[in-house]
């Protein structure tokens, strides 16, 4: 313990600034990892059905695309098992408020008698039809209390309900009413969403399931409620994996800095190592000293990181949840749960990274012979001599990285793509020494001519400390590369989406039910709306979209019907291959469909394949006529002509209307006219431009977390730059003192260190830009494509990248301010004679 205190803790205390900077770097790396994990868990962990609150624990759910035929209930009830069966409707509904404050929420229609819910207690049967239970989230949002009256709007009519109860501790918005009232309101006769099964105590669940399967059509699904949560988690898997990998970049950048920090410690304590060895310490003992130092930094840094990560998670859970809702599935963030397991995992990750990052410098320290006074010049000369070998390794790594990019996804994950990224970073690390010395060599004349002695000495000092400079440059370059790669990917994606939006949103005015738009939720428009819009003067034509969520091969997707002749006229779709006109013309009146690119990626189907989709009591066999680019969400969509959809689902309501205004008519005036006509209906009417702007806004919000992650990685790299510059100053303090002897003013010393900082930033920026461009190709064409199935056109946002790189460069120079001050403050007479 005494030795631990003297040989590990005391040196850490002596180099307080280095220790603190390293700790902050580890803490930030760990914090980001834990924050992404916690926030991801919270965003993904809240899919538990609100039905549990209403009806208690459900054992099985019976579902079918486009709803379950109600008549099956009679057959199920006759089964010789101890089980209750309750029909449920789960549909979006519009809650009417004062003018233009309508909202849409989830409506549960439940069989009050069969489920024995609180809704029925003490109620007359007449009251049942007008009673409602609301979730506490909704009640709080709209300041509702028990006994208040609310108006719900269905397709044909509105109905008033009295709030009988408020379900406490709910984080999602929903309203529960009796199933009879729900069917009447939503015009949902003869069909229900699903049937909940409650198995009696002592009854064999498997037997119940077997009998149910024998009773219902084979295309229907019988699953446990947990399966639904599992499906949601599966949908989010790629998204969460990508975030997780991004979060590991900060840790990787941190690893370079721990390596550097321990290397500095080894250099600074060279004499001490010699003395310890002379006093009888074994080389293993020396190894343990430095590994102990790294482990200490890892443990303390990770603990700080866990605390910081918990705070960060609270900040980003909203952002992640927004993305989940916009692109994947409807959810509300659950509580952030920091489990002992995740604490232990974070602690282990941080400490392990610290331990392994320190292994190389610690082994170097252990190899120092007792009487050896290692001359840095010799070490650096050797480092330079190895550049040929390093370049060969780099080339091999780059080649392997390219090879991995050709490998397909493994269990739906771009594992080879991630490995390719890692190998590319490793290749850059191997290139770094040669890159630093050759670039500084090329800049030699420039530095001396334009930056004077400060430039000359700064450049040479960086090359002289090549092994250390290379690590800092690699760390900073990795962070910059991540920024560039993600920047290029997001910029390209944004441009691609904008081009797609321009084609997609070809109509002049769009309409949907009021309320928040969420993936998989298709609120129906009231029946009269379509006719009212069509008859508005100035309306040339309208397209309507009827969409519903279906299950296809165990994954959720959207099936929609549209007027394909109108879509064809406006040239809305861009197909991966084939003539758009021919493809669209082949749809009306036939069982043919076009599907989105993510759909084909998920289900491995292509043109000519037949999709067998159970719809109601039948099965629609749809031939894929074309695959089109679509960036609206990740779940995949099957689009058929309106006539085809109505053939299978005659009552399917309209969810969206697109209006084309006649030439010569004022679009604004037509919109106002439509507004007037639909005054009594909760419809959101938006012009084309508004929708485009909104879509881009959602897009930008989606990538806010990505930018935040990049920011942290850059911050970690900055800390590393400051740490390393400080280390360079400490290591070269005699040299700095000497320069003062030779007539350098304090200002010149300060400028010299700032020039070094600037050069580090420039070197890292250049290497990072090259690496980042390569990584962006991996992100766009391998990782993104394999994760989400979207084709992104390569559009690097040069102006944005330029500004970001400039900003990073300025921050790197700022990171040199403290080391520069420190260097300028050194007393030459003291430092020159101290060794």
């Amino acid at each position, binding site marked *: 313990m005494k030795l631990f205190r003297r040989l590990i803790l005391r040196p850490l205390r002596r180099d307080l600034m280095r220790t603190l900077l390293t700790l902050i770097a580890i803490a930030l790396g760990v914090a980001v990892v834990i924050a992404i994990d916690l926030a991801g868990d919270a965003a993904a962990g809240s899919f538990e059905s609100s039905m549990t609150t209403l009806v208690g624990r459900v054992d099985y759910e019976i579902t079918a695309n486009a709803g379950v035929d109600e008549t099956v209930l009679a057959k199920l009830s006759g089964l010789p098992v101890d089980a209750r069966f309750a029909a449920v409707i789960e549909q979006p509904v519009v809650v009417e408020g004062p003018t233009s404050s309508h909202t849409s929420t989830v409506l549960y229609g439940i069989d009050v008698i069969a489920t024995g819910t609180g809704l029925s207690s003490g109620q007359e049967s007449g009251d049942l039809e007008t009673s409602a239970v609301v979730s506490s989230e909704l009640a709080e949002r709209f300041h509702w209390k028990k006994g208040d009256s609310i108006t719900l709007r269905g397709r044909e009519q509105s109905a008033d309900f009295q709030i009988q109860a408020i379900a406490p501790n709910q984080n999602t918005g929903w309203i529960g009413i009796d199933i009879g009232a729900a069917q009447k309101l939503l015009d949902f006769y003869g069909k229900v969403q699903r049937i909940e099964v409650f198995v009696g105590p002592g009854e064999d669940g498997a037997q119940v399931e077997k009998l149910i399967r024998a009773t219902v059509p084979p295309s229907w699904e019988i699953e446990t409620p947990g399966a639904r949560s599992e499906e949601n988690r599966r949908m989010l898997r790629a998204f969460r994996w990508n975030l997780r990998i991004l979060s590991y970049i900060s840790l990787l950048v941190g690893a370079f800095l721990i390596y550097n920090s321990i290397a500095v410690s080894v250099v600074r304590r060279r004499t001490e190592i010699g003395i310890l060895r002379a006093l009888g310490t074994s080389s293993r003992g020396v190894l343990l000293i430095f590994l102990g130092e790294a482990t200490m930094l890892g443990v303390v840094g990770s603990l700080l990181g866990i605390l910081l990560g918990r705070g960060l998670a609270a900040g980003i859970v909203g952002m992640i949840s927004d993305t989940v809702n916009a692109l994947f599935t409807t959810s509300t963030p659950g509580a952030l749960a920091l489990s002992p397991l995740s604490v232990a995992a974070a602690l282990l990750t941080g400490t392990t990274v610290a331990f392994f990052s320190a292994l190389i410098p610690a082994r170097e320290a252990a190899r120092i012979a007792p009487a050896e006074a290692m*001359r840095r010049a010799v070490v650096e000369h050797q480092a330079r001599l190895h550049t040929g070998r390093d370049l060969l390794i780099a080339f091999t790594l780059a080649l392997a990285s390219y090879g991995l990019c050709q490998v397909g996804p493994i269990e739906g994950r771009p594992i080879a793509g991630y490995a390719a990224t890692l190998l590319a970073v490793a290749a850059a690390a191997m290139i770094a020494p040669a890159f630093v010395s050759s670039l500084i060599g090329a800049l030699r004349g420039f530095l001396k001519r334009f930056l004077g002695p400060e430039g000359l000495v700064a450049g040479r000092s960086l*090359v*002289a400390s090549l092994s250390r400079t290379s690590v800092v440059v690699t760390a900073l370059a990795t962070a910059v590369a991540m920024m560039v790669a993600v920047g290029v990917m997001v910029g390209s994606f944004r441009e691609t989406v904008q081009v797609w939006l321009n084609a997609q949103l070809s109509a002049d005015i769009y309409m949907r039910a009021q309320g928040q738009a969420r993936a998989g939720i298709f609120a129906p428009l009231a029946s009269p709306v379509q006719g009212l819009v069509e008859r508005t003067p100035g309306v040339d034509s309208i397209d309507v979209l009827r969409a519903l969520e279906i299950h296809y091969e165990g994954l959720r997707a959207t099936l929609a019907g549209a007027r394909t002749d109108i879509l064809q006229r406006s040239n809305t779709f861009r197909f991966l291959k084939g003539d758009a006109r021919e493809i669209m013309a082949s749809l009306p009146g036939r069982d043919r469909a076009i599907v989105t690119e993510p759909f084909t990626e998920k289900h491995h189907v292509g043109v000519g394949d037949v999709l067998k989709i159970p719809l109601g009591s039948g099965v629609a066999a749809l031939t894929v006529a074309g695959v089109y680019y679509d960036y609206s969400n990740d779940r995949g969509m099957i689009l058929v002509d309106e006539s085809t959809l109505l053939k299978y689902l005659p009552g399917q309501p309209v969810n969206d209307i697109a209006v084309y205004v006649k030439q010569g008519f004022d679009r604004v005036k037509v919109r106002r006219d439509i507004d007037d006509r639909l005054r009594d209906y909760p419809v959101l009417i938006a012009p084309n431009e508004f929708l485009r702007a909104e879509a881009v806004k959602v897009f930008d919000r989606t990538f806010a977390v990505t930018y935040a992650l990049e920011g942290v990685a850059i911050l970690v790299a900055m800390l590393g730059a400051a740490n390393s510059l400080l280390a360079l100053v400490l290591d070269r303090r005699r040299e700095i003192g000497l*320069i003062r*002897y*030779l007539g350098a003013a*304090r200002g010149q010393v300060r400028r010299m260190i700032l020039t070094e900082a600037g050069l580090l930033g420039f070197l890292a920026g250049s290497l990072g830009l090259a690496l980042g461009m390569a990584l962006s190709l991996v992100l766009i064409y391998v990782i993104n494509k394999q994760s989400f199935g979207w084709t992104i056109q390569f559009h690097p946002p040069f102006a944005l990248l330029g500004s970001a790189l400039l900003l990073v460069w300025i921050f790197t120079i700022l990171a040199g301010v403290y080391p520069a001050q420190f260097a300028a403050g050194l007393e030459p*007479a003291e430092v020159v004679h101290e060794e």
Partner: protein
Amino acid sequence: MFSTSVLPIHILDATKTYPGGVEALRGVSLECAAGSVTALVGRSGCGKTTLLNLCGAMDFPTTGEVRVSGQDTSKLDDAGLTHLRRNKIGFVFQFFQLLPSLTALENVELPLLLAGAKNTEAKARERLGWVGLDDKCESLPYQLSGGQMQRVAIARAMVHDPAILVADEPTGNLDTASGDVVLKLIRRAADELGAAVVFATHSAEAAAIADIRVRMRDGRMESA
């Protein structure tokens, strides 16, 4: 005696006490004229280096007066001291103290660059020629022998024609042959370039090249 206004080094009754109470100098006076060589001899810890620091405007006395090139160093701020060192003083150290990342030529050129001088490279080449190393311009320090490194250090110290050359044990880390070459150069710095040379040494042979030999003990001058 010389007039104090023109003497490169004029120290009068200087004392130096370090924090902690260590008295490094106890009333020392020294005058060095242009073209003269002064040797400070004595054991380690006798105050030689402290006295050299006063001569080189690297430190201030606790009491007494130090005039370097006619300027009272205690009245100069950091910028003034830097200016003085940059233009009037050259330093040579026992362990050469060349910047390992710069070539011999660049090491010699550095004081001129720091001073913002013109034709720096030509002057540096000329001074390297003066120490007999014109063929080592592009060599890095680790490629040179100890004697060569010290010659580069002397070239660097004299590149800006300083009025004063301060050398701390210039032959302390060299073999006899290399040491002789270095001592000859130090002598030439005074004779040919007119510098007032003051150097510390343990060696009686080295001290023999000096015009004035000052023996020091416990921070005091014992005899001339």
